[in-house]
Structures are given as C-alpha cells and as structure tokens.
C-alpha cells in the first residue's frame, strides 16, 4: 500500500552572508537551537552579492519563501554592502507586491555572528509565515517541478 504524504513542507531559501549571518546560523547549530530543516541556507560573500534575479530564480525553482540575512547595517565586512542591498530589496519586494505576489514570501533580516538565538527565532517565524501562506503558485516555473 502506498501512503501519500500530503502535509505541506515549505521550501525556504535563506541567503546568508559569509561574515555574520552564516556564522550566526553556525552558532544556532552549535548551541543546539532548533530551526526547521525546511530552511536551505545558501552562503554568499555579502548580502549585496544577492542579485534580485537570485531571489526570482529561487522562486522559479520551487521555493515558497526567500529570506536574505546579512550583517547589521554598519557592520558589513565590506563596510557598505548591506546598505545597497537594503535599497535593492526594498524596491524588489515592493515590485513583487505590485505584481500581486503575497507580501510575506520575502524578508530581510540582519543577523550578527553572535545572534544564534535571533537566527533561530527568525527562521521559525518565517517558516510559520510561509505555512500560513501555503504553496507559492504565483511565482514559479512549472517545468522545474519534481
């Protein structure tokens, strides 16, 4: 007998900058703080490395939510990278909203290397939000299924 698993498991992509947020995620792990396994971390050198296309591409390949984490403003390893990322993401998120894509599917959070707890709570919150929104159907590429 085949058992079908119909439970919704969201796919979440988290872009984390190498210098703060990725270390924050590491700390969350080594401090045994739980966050859902649905979050797939992609390490980037800096939050401003994230081209708006990366975010769209993640959705295209089936992500239900995309979150970008970087150093706190003022703490970027490259001094100002996250200030540029902040402007870009504000405009991109606003455009997605304008096109009718649900607002909660994208998020930016600043997480330092010392904030393991913040990393884990942020991810828990975000996953809960995506659960609430359900599957992403407005921004995805049907060819990339399975």
């Amino acid at each position: 007998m085949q058992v079908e698993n119909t439970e919704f498991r969201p796919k979440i992509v988290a872009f984390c900058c190498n210098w703060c947020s990725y270390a924050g995620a590491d700390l969350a792990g080594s401090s045994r703080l739980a966050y859902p396994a649905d979050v797939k971390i992609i390490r980037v050198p800096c939050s401003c490395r994230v081209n708006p296309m990366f975010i769209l591409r993640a959705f295209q390949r089936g992500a239900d939510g995309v979150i970008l984490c970087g150093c706190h403003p003022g703490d970027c390893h490259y001094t100002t990278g996250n200030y540029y990322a902040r402007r870009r993401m504000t405009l991109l998120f606003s455009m997605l909203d304008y096109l009718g894509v649900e607002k909660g599917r994208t998020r930016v959070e600043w997480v330092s290397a010392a904030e393991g707890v913040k990393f884990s709570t942020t991810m828990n919150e975000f996953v809960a939000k995506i659960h609430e929104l359900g599957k992403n159907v407005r921004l995805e590429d049907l060819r990339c299924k399975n």
Partner: protein
Amino acid sequence: MQELITRAKELLADGTVSRVLGWKKGDLGWDPEPAYFDKAEELENFIYNPFCGANLSKYLIAAGKLEGTTLVFLKPCDTYSFNQLVKEHRVKKDKTYIIGVGCHGTLDPEKIRNTGVKGIADAVLEGDRVRLNTLYGDKEAAAAEVLLDRCLVCKGKTHVVCDELIGAEPGEEAGPGELAVNRFAQVEELENLPPEERFAFWQEQLSRCIRCNACRNVCPACSCLKCVFDSSQFDSNQKANADTFEEQMFHIIRAFHVAGRCTDCGECSRVCPESIPLHLLNRKFIKDIDTFYGEYQAGADTESKGPLTDFTFEDVEPGIIAERGGGR
C-alpha cells in the same frame, strides 16, 4: 524642417561634424526611421514631423566609436536619455554635437487608426488639434486623443543638454501635450486593487509578450553589450520555453535593471507590438524611489549619484513593504 536640413548641411560642410543622425522618410508616412546621413545630398530624405518619436540617444553609443563628431537631433525628453548615458560613461559629450529640436508631442499611429483614419501620410500639430494629411484627403483629430501616452505626461519642453536650439525656445512652456495628468495615477490605481486582481491584471498583460525584445533593444538605459536575456543558460531567453513565470522573470528583471536609470522616456511602451504598458512597471520603481529616497529624475544632470548606487544610514528597511497596507 528646412531649417534643420540647412543647418546640418552647414555643419557638414565646415567640418564641425562628420555625420548627421536624424530621421528619414520611411516606406509609410507615419513611420519615419532613425538614420545616418554622411553627405549633404543624402539629407534630402531627412524628415522631422510629429511621427518622429524615436529617441536617437542610444545610437550615439555606436556613433561615438566612429571617427569624428556626430550631429544629432534631440527632442527635449531625449536629452534626458543622453545625459544619463553620459553619466554612465556610455557616450561622450565632446564627440557629439546636439541640436535641440522643438517638440509639441509625438503621435501614436495606432490611436489615429483607431479613430477610423486610414492612409496617413503626414501630420501637423496645431494647438490642441492635429491636421492629418491622408490618402483620402485631409482629416482632423483632437491632439489629446492621438498623442502617445508618454506625451500626455510630458516632462516639459526644456532641453537639459544641447549645443544649439532650433524651433524651440529655452524655458518654453509645455504644449497641448501637457494635460496636467499625474503620471503616477495609473500606478496608484493598480496599487489600490486587491493583490489577486493585481496579479490577474499583470498575468493578462504579460502573457501577451512575444519576447521580441524590442523594449530592451530600444531602451537607452539598456545598453549592455552582452545581455543576460541572450544567454543560452538563461531559461527565459526564448518564447519556446513559455510558461507564466518566464514573463514575470523577464519583465521584473528588465524593469529592475533600469530602476533609477530609467528617464521615463516611454520608448519601451511605444515600440511594444503587444501594447503592454511597460511604463507602469518603470513608473512603479520611479514612484517608490521618490517616496523612499527623495524625488529623482534620471538624466536631469550628469553628476549626481543614482538612487541605487547611493544610500543613507537612515534608509527604510525592506520590511516596510510587508507592514504597509494595500499595494503601496
């Protein structure tokens, strides 16, 4: 028009310029084409009328690589694109001689045809009327009904850069085109719809796209030699891969790429064979930039930093989008 030709001939003859970039008569009266004129005789085919909507600034990227100076005719709004290209180091002012030409609005042949007028050969704008010369005799129309949408929200008749003016007065008031329409009105209308309706609206619009790339090719702000949309690695490079996401991807990336650099010249919407309102995407970015980072007009000068290559410590957080109500 004769005045423009005479002046172009003078400048060619005294060696100030090596070639002229302007518009020439097309096969059909309502369809003039951008063209180079290397010799005085060729200028016989030169034309300047209200159908010369094409913005010639982008051609100057290629012209700048040729020997000598290029004479170009720019309408007031075209000069913004030119400035923006100078700012981005794509063209050099000293390889260009700009004659600013007067403009009272450019016409939309499609709108004219929709009023039932056929066989358009020529047109003259007179105040708020357009006199149309057609194969079936003279016709008339109200300017406001047949001007291109972009001319209804004209930036004004001032040339932000030029070497001389012909047929235009410095500081001239906007003509009949200027109907005091708020250029963000349509954007606001969309913002006020529920998200499902916005999604349906854009799906309807964007799914008509045939990926001819005309909007990209004509855009003076889109000037990369190698474009991501031409990459064979990119799933969105051809219509044969069609699905709904493809259009969204193409259109978001196209509009984002020119965010902060788009002068709102309206060329993309003008050339789209599917009449997709691309300006509504560009203007959304312009509106957001104005609200979040202060009013900004791309191409108004050649020095200032663009909004996406600049920041302040106090910028809003992206979270503001999720917090605010409606589509704003």
